[in-house]
């Protein structure tokens, strides 16, 4: 350190001064930590060879009159720093007056950095997936562009079913020449992953399937051509309807709180039988009846049922172990947007896809 000298001043412009004084301040700080209090005092404040003396003579006194003031101000700051460092080094610590001079306005807002927010759909989707992961479900995913076979035929959608109509399904161009089951379309539900999984893997199967799906729907407050689903599939020997009930009752309590009740209604889906719609007791009013639940005390949340033997028959073409006489299973599915809208009080489904910083920032 001893061979270090104060830097040469290239010119008196602001940049040069700032550079030189910044180097000096760093040097003083380095010295303060490296040297004892007395050595530091001698090196910086020594009457003859002290560095401050040198700075004064080489910068301040040599400065042309026009720059005297700016050099002087910087010199004063440096001197205060050196004196402060000496006070700390000698153990007495700075005086209250010195500390008071350093007062800041602590009421000014803090400098904030953006914290990126998880998308409310991702957040909700992960919450649902985690509930089923804790019940022993692995995550399954599949392509967003599917064949008619996986999306419809193997899910037991009869040939004339309205969902197969392009009114309801977005299709890839130029499919007319292909056989019906090979035609490509945007999957309308995540159910195809059920069939893909069963074709790959004999029972037991326990998967939860999150994903993006599409329908040829006009956008309104609660409908969007793009939305997300979480489906689940559980197949084993001796899986029963009461297992389906218990699983979903448990999952709804895990998602919405232990006081939530579920009830099951007969419904119809091509790929399950018996099929059910599931309602949960209204999370807003606790079941007393309010505007959100249309005074019924219940909110419809998901569809489910026992896997239809016809679906197993398709799976058995590749995995003979899916014999509906020996195994059974249940499947369920729910719309992520609907649950996210309910959880976060979102009234327009379109907000999920608009990329508006103000909307997304609320979820940080």
């Amino acid at each position, binding site marked *: 350190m001893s061979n270090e000298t104060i830097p040469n001043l290239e010119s008196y412009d602001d940049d040069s001064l700032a550079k030189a004084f910044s180097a000096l301040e760093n040097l003083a700080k380095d010295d303060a930590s490296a040297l004892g209090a007395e050595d530091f005092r001698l090196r910086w404040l020594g009457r003859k060879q002290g560095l401050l003396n040198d700075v004064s003579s080489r910068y301040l006194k040599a400065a042309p009159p026009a720059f005297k003031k700016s050099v002087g101000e910087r010199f004063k700051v440096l001197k205060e720093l050196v004196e402060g460092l000496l006070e700390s080094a000698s153990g007495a610590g700075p005086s209250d007056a010195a500390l008071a001079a350093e007062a800041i306005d602590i009421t*000014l*807002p803090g*400098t*904030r*950095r*953006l*914290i*990126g927010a*998880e*998308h409310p*759909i*991702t957040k909700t989707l992960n919450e649902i997936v985690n509930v089923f992961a804790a019940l*022993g479900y*692995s*995550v399954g*995913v599949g*392509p*967003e*562009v599917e064949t008619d076979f996986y999306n419809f035929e193997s899910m037991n959608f009869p040939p004339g079913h309205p969902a197969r109509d*392009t009114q309801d399904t*977005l*299709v*890839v*161009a*130029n*499919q007319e020449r292909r056989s019906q089951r090979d035609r490509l379309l945007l999957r309308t539900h995540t159910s195809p992953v059920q069939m893909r999984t069963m074709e790959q893997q004999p029972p*037991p199967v*326990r998967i939860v399937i999150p994903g*993006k799906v*599409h329908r*040829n729907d006009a956008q309104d407050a609660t409908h969007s*051509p*793009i939305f997300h689903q979480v489906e689940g599939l*559980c197949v*084993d020997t*001796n899986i*029963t*309807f*009461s*297992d389906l*009930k*218990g699983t979903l*009752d*448990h999952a709804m309590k895990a998602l919405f709180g232990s006081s939530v009740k579920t009830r*099951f*209604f*007969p419904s*119809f889906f091509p790929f399950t*039988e*018996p099929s059910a719609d599931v309602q949960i007791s209204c999370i807003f009013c606790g079941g007393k009846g309010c505007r959100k639940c249309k005074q019924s005390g219940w909110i419809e949340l998901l569809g489910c049922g*026992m896997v239809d*033997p016809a679906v197993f028959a398709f799976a058995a073409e590749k995995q003979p172990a899916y014999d509906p006489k020996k195994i059974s299973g249940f499947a369920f599915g729910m719309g992520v947007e609907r649950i996210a809208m309910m959880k976060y009080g979102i009234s327009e489904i379109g907000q999920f*896809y608009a*990329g*508006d*910083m*103000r909307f*997304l*920032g609320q979820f*940080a």
Partner: protein
Amino acid sequence: MKILTKWLRSYLPELPVDDAQLAEDLTLRGIAVEGIYSLGEGNGSLFEMDITTNRVDAMNHYGVAREAAAIYGVALKPLDISLPEAKPSAKPFDVKIEATDACGRFTARVLRGITVTETKDWYPGAEVETYFNLLEQKKISSAVDATNFCWLAMGQPTHAFDLDKLEGGIIVRRARKGEKLKTLDGIERTLDPEDLIVADHAKPLALAGVMGGWDSMITAETKNVLVEAAWFDPIAVRRTARRHGLHTDASHRFERGADFNAAPVASAIVSKILLAFGGHIEGDLVDVRVPAVEARTNSRAAVSLALSEVQRMLGTTVHSEGIAAPMVEKILVALGCGLAPAGDGVWSVTLPSWRLDIEREIDLIEEVARVYGYNGFANTLPAFGGGVQALPWAAAEAAVRNTMRAAGFHEAIASTFCSAAEAALTAPQPGQVVPLGNPLSEEAGVLRPSLVPGMLAAVAGNLHRDVSDVRLFEAGTVFSGSTEKVEERPALGFVAAGTVPEQSALHAPRAIDFHDVKGVVEQVAAQFQARTVYFDRFPADSGIMPRWLHPYRAARINVDGTTVGWFGQLHPNEAAARKLKDAVLVGEIYLDRLYKLPLRKPAAREVSRFQPVRRDFSLVLDASISWEKIDQAIAALQLPELVDWRAREVFRDPKRGGKEYSLLLGVTFQAADRTLRDEELQAFHAQVVAAVGAAGARLRS
């Protein structure tokens, strides 16, 4: 559909519950009551029903009553089909079914000497006036109202012809080209050769199962009537109705599959009402059936049902007795099935003609569960066997998302689609763009080949709404290939605009720039175990730089020798086209390529306890010499004690005309095992000076 509880109860004298309970119990069995409206003292309630299309049998009072009888295990009164003695006729009325593919059964009954009058409550069981008033069903005449009453009661459409307008007998056939029929709505229709019609020997009389004809309708003068009750094929009726733009109560029912056995019952109900004000029956009921249709509706093969299957599928009930044989028998018999023992714990079940939706054993099991009540089953959990497998790339995807969020980027989800023009601009593989056959709009005509269009739409949306600080990313799927075979890959898109820091009263914000975003890209790449990560760009005229990027302010991201993405400033032409005045930084990373690398596993190194020594070098460089050259020159020294070096400050003095620039190079020396001596440091210093000198830098004097 509307249901009167007063009418329902007339079929269920023992019904043990009030209307509200009845509504809830029906709803929980899939016969949904959407609204309950009290009709005043003694009148019961009106139920607004929402019945799924597969349960057409329950879209009438007797059908709902049958459900209630099954639920509560109470008796269902048979429908009153008693008729007065017929007078003999010389010969049976002539009915012929030509279209045997489309008409399975046709019954005809001749009534003579009737009087068409106002509707009344005719007799107990035919309180037509009371029920119609409560339903607010318009009363037309005793004849029309009789057919409507019958349909509302038990679901079978019927038709009454003025017998004196008929020429010869009835023929059910397809229309002939050019034939005309004026239907009951007063419209003269030209018939299509595909139309199924009821005709006499001279002319068309009615669109079968859809609407009757004007000329043969019952009027105030009508004395003699032919009552039609038939079974028409669902598809034939749907096609006829659609061709003529008609949707009637009758077509609604036939399209969903009518009850093959309902025709004679309905004929009796209508006839009895028509005869309540005088007149008589002539001859026996004429009943023509097509055996092939009867075989697939009324005489379907019995289905085998095993109690063990019922229990295997349904599981545990709340009540300890579970689903035992008597419960199964009680429920299915109440629904109209016939159960005959066929071995130990097995039944042979005959199926009711009105439930064409029941075909298989599982359908019967569903009926048992439904009527038993889904909420009567316990909540059990299946035994858990086997472990949970995470998706192979789940951890990598989480690392990417977390890094982006930690860098201050909000996650967005953009459209899966873009316009063909945007796709052409941004597709990483030119020409590999997949169009949709029925796009939502022209702007959404193709599957997105890149996440960049979505990111640009999002940044534009924000900037146009005066939200100036934008940091967004999307981790989503991009599509390539062709309409023959579509490839899907995961990608990361990101976009930034505005200033850093985002908000501060104390620090002057500055515009976010290329290197801010480069830092984020480096941090994403650093999540993976890569040997090399470097950035380069190509001459503007090389055609390699993506057209959406500023050719001099953009870079390719190269990890382990593979291009994993591009980012930089949006090309000014693209910014102008989107009316974006602020500089926008945008990029895309091909995650499938990054995911091939393992995630970096942090490994702790011993932290040296010896004093580090920092040295700064003030360098002057020609503008053509990039930092990379200096960086590589120092790295090539391979000095173990040279633990860190970085560009501390870059200064481009405009006065020097951009020919050269200053660089403050900060270097840190530190040894793991000793304090560095002065002479060592001097040697290192000289090595650094020599290395950067060879790279073209000179020390500022």
